[in-house]
């Protein structure tokens, strides 16, 4: 198990290779370019294919083709590029094809800016594409988690035959940290019997999302829904930091949680019993865990680098009888720990 000093993006790309990624299709967009750049070099060395597509629309569909052949596939992009892939993601979900999609978020709407943002929470978690489906979404907050969660995303994608997403802000992807390369010998991937092999074996295989006959489609939609329910049972990830005795719990994901931890430390130093709750899997959302906390704590402060998206889910889960504050910063500059500490104080005072 190597110990490395890596940028988040490198760590993620290396994780993908260790997870046995065999097909990556990319299209340049800031701020995620170091992922395709790394993989264009490294993937061929392990027998994987790297393709630079003509567009995001093309690349998500290349993934669809390669995934149907049973190999592990991935792409990465940033917000506008993710929007362009929504039809394709919906097709992957409908066709039950595993694929991993990385969104290194930038500012929107439109061309926006290229700074750190969490403006795509809604898009990622509520289905930016058409139709009824949920894509599991993981939000790493360290270089180590970039490595661990990309592997998790591949596993979940295969297990549930679904696209899965890594949602991350650029700060996490730029930051260099120590990384334990847990699977430096690679991961063995289960064979996919449903996928196209080297040739037709037995009955014809058809991979599609069109269901016209009778109530095939209704059944299909409920099947997708049940997969989601199963994920809700089995794939929830979260972290609760100093929540047990907390009078106020900060909630945030990604870099905000990271900064939030420092803010909680600051608050504790200054006598405020603060805690931090961090959803790691945004889909499935850690509903039960948060609900449990809400029986013990009255005050929640949601912090996001947007004008308020996850906060709606928190309201739904925590309930209207709690105090739920929101601090949004839709700017390229993440708040700093002092800023969050002051917000905590302010919030408790009023």
């Amino acid at each position, binding site marked *: 198990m190597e110990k490395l000093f890596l940028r988040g993006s490198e760590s993620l790309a290396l994780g993908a290779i260790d997870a046995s990624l065999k097909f990556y299709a990319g299209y340049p967009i800031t701020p995620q370019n170091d992922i395709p750049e790394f993989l264009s070099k490294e993937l061929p060395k392990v027998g994987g294919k790297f393709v630079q597509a003509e567009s995001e629309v093309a690349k998500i569909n290349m993934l669809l083709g390669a995934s149907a052949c049973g190999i592990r596939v991935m792409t990465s992009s940033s917000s506008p590029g993710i929007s362009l892939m929504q039809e394709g993601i919906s097709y992957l979900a409908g066709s039950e094809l595993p694929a991993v999609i990385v969104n290194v978020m930038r500012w929107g709407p439109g061309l926006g800016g*290229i700074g750190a943002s969490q403006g795509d929470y809604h898009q990622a978690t509520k289905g930016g594409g058409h139709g009824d489906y949920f894509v599991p979404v993981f939000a790493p907050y360290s270089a180590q988690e970039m490595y661990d969660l990309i592997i998790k995303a591949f596993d979940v994608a295969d297990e549930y035959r679904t696209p899965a997403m890594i949602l991350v802000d650029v700060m996490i992807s730029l930051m260099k940290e120590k990384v334990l390369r847990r699977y430096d010998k690679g991961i063995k991937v289960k064979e996919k019997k449903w996928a196209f092999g080297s040739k037709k074996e037995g009955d014809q295989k058809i991979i599609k999302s069109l269901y016209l006959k009778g109530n095939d489609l209704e059944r299909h939609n409920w099947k997708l829904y049940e997969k989601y329910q199963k994920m809700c049972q089995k794939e929830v990830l979260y972290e609760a930091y100093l929540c047990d005795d907390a009078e106020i719990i900060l909630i945030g994901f990604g870099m905000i949680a990271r900064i939030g931890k420092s803010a909680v430390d600051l608050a504790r130093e200054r006598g405020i019993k603060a805690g931090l709750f961090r959803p790691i899997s945004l889909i499935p959302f850690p509903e039960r865990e948060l609900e449990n906390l809400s029986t013990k704590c009255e005050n929640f402060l949601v912090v996001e680098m947007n004008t308020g998206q996850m906060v709606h889910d928190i309201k739904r889960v925590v309930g209207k009888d709690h105090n739920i504050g929101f601090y949004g910063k839709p700017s390229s500059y993440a708040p700093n720990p002092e800023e969050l500490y002051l917000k905590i104080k302010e919030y408790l005072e009023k």
Partner: protein
Amino acid sequence: MSSKYYFDFVFSGFGGQGILIAGNLLCYSAILENREVTFFPSYGVEMRGGSANCYVVLSDSQIGSPIPSHPMGSIIMSTPALIRFLPIIKNNGLVLINSDIISTDDINRKDLDIRLIPANKLSIDVIGNERLANMVMLGYLVSATKCVKIESLVKSIKEVVSEKHKKLIPLNEKAILAGAELFEKDKRC
């Protein structure tokens, strides 16, 4: 947190001055000493302007924000860097300024521990050109803060530098030691 092992720095200058290399090396040295580290470079539009900066945090426990709001130490290698970062340095923080490039006119805080370091000159003195001014600065910083051992720094150079550039190792070492010595001298007077 001050009772524990904890340091945070900002290094800033023009692209090409080796700012990011210095930050990386420091992190690497701390890792050799089994510390937690984060390294955070500037990014995006900022980069086009030709500036380069990075934040380094060293700690003995998990690090929260990788971007200290008020770094306790800094290496400043250009005037724009001085203007941008001087205001945010922590009270009594350590500010190392490459005085061969930056005029002292722009220094407008009195509460800081400011050191003017003729890093270009020192670099020329020890290795014949000014290319390793960054290492001089880093040597000074490490020896002033004791955040890592000078030996770790030297060792980390050896681990980081590729085979091809191996011959540069002794030069880097010399520059670092020159910086460290300068600090010792400064201390004496």
